[in-house]
């Protein structure tokens, strides 16, 4: 019995192939968009997360709560001596590398123009253990104690700087006195993180001396191994042992809260896209089944006259809805798999060298990700929505009186 109903359903779909193909294409397009946009957003989130960890925060960082609460705070009011922690942290198996940083506000002059920058004192020897900054470096990396600066590509572009140029970094010391540092540009950083490209890097010891901060830093960054959660807990307990209420350990997600909020909002986009997909399926399938039932009214009458029950007629139309859902979803998934393979392997560069802005720590080439849950979910939802959408028009079609139907 199921055999003949399936045969009838699929032959009827083929009979109205133009309508069937258009409905399937609409559904396939919906599925395709859901999968590709998810891959795109997933890729962006993953890359942005990686950029934050590798170029900005490390896996876990120790920092004053005040800096995390207000990321625009560039004051030197909440510095701390990292030597208090280093011995305890080194004893933790989970901490595989650590490096201090000193962030401060400055103005960079090239003799003609100036630009407000975020300056960062970094330990030239240990910074590469935690951050991958050097991978994006043109020129040389910093040397301890030297009057050197590595500038972000955007800053270099704005001030027309090249390697071996000299610049003046104007800042204020911890005592609020002006301090002008005469520095040689030894390298230019062109990273996929726009914020890094807007910063300048100087040797930590030179910065500390110049700012009148003996051994003080604004953050201590760590790379951890094993479970991130247990590492975070262990580091937190080291901070607590120091009885320092102003400081805290932060995972990279906590440190980059704004970004995480943005990443969370991508879930809302998923829901919206999924709703659109369901709507496409419902409209397309309802239209196809209603039209099919209208055109085949007499056939329905004949089938009922031969003894087919209303349930069986309903089943036949629901099978048609399933057919549309299956073919549309499969086509959408197949096309999406092909496109996504390209996105994952080769990526695209939709914005050229433009920064995405809006605090998105991402620039340049974007890659997709494989999200099998969404791929399988979109396929299932496409079929399920089609079948559900087909039920009401199918029941309507099956409920027609055979006498009335035969008269059409």
């Amino acid at each position: 019995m199921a055999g003949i109903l399936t045969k009838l359903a699929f032959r009827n779909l083929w009979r109205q192939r133009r309508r069937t193909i258009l409905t399937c294409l609409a559904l396939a397009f919906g599925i395709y968009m859901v999968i590709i946009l998810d891959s795109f957003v997933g890729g962006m989130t993953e890359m942005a997360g990686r950029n934050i960890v590798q170029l900005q925060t490390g896996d876990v960082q120790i920092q004053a709560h005040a800096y995390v609460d207000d990321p625009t705070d560039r004051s030197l009011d909440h510095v701390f001596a990292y030597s208090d922690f280093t011995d305890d942290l080194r004893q933790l198996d989970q901490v595989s590398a650590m490096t201090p940083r000193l962030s401060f506000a400055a103005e960079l002059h090239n003799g003609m123009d100036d630009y407000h920058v975020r300056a960062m004192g970094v330990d030239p020897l240990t910074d590469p253990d935690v951050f991958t900054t050097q991978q994006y470096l043109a020129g040389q990396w910093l040397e301890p104690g030297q009057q050197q600066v590595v500038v972000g590509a955007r800053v270099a572009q704005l001030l027309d700087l090249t390697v071996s140029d000299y610049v003046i970094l104007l800042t204020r010391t911890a005592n609020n006195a002006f301090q002008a540092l005469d520095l040689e540009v030894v390298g230019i950083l062109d990273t996929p993180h726009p914020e890094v490209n807007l910063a300048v890097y100087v040797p930590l010891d030179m910065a500390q001396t110049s700012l009148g901060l003996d051994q003080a830093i604004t953050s201590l960054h760590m790379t951890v191994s094993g479970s991130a959660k247990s590492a975070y807990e262990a580091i937190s307990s080291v901070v607590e042992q120091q009885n320092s209420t102003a400081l805290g350990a932060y995972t990279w997600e906590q440190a980059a809260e704004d970004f995480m909020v943005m990443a969370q909002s991508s879930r809302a986009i998923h829901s919206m896209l999924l709703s659109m997909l369901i709507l496409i399926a419902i409209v397309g399938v309802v239209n196809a089944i209603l039209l099919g039932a209208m055109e085949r009214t007499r056939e329905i009458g004949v089938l009922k006259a031969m003894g087919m029950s209303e349930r069986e007629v309903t089943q036949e139309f629901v099978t048609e809805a399933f057919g549309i859902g299956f073919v549309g979803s499969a086509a959408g998934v197949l096309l999406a798999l092909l496109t996504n393979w390209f996105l994952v392997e080769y990526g695209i560069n939709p914005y050229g060298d433009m920064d995405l802005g809006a605090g998105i720590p991402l620039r340049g080439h974007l890659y997709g990700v494989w999200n099998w849950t969404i791929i399988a979910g979109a396929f299932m939802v496409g079929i399920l929505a089609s079948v559900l959408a087909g039920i009401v028009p199918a029941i309507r079609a099956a409920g027609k009186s055979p006498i009335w139907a035969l008269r059409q």
Partner: protein
Amino acid sequence: MTMLELSNVTKIYAQGKVHVTALRDVDFRVDSGEFLSIAGPSGSGKTTLLNLIGCLDVPTKGSIVLEGQQLAERSKTQLAKIRRDHLGFVFQSYNLVPVLTAIENVSLPLELMRNMTKKAVRERAERTLTDVGLAEHLHHRPNELSGGQQQRVAIARALVKEPSLILADEPTANLDSETGEAILQLMWT
């Protein structure tokens, strides 16, 4: 043996506030093996009567007993089951399922009955189509057959399940006289 018995069957259609009596107090009996023609002018209620006997409609009044089963007060599903198991229909305009071939159209009533294997269904359908002279057209779709051939398929479809009663509503009306004669001959045999 009485196969069909109608007593005081009346059918009144309500068209808005107007009530049209299509049949009034019809009584008759049909025995097994009997070949019965109902003749009458257009609008005299022939099709209404066939619809009532064919369980496609229910009488306003009176009783219809088919093979000892009272048809009144049956649910839609029960009526569908009676149509499936006991009745065969031949329509004036053939009404074959266009997406099925001749043999698939003839197999359809047997598949709906669900009591035969695929092989048995196919063999029976093939034999019936051969009996009506369409052995060469088993795999033709209705649009590839002439009117007479389509009506033969329709007859084969009605005959294939060996129903208790075959109801034919003007089966030759759309055919030329020669083909119509052949169809009637076929139904007699």
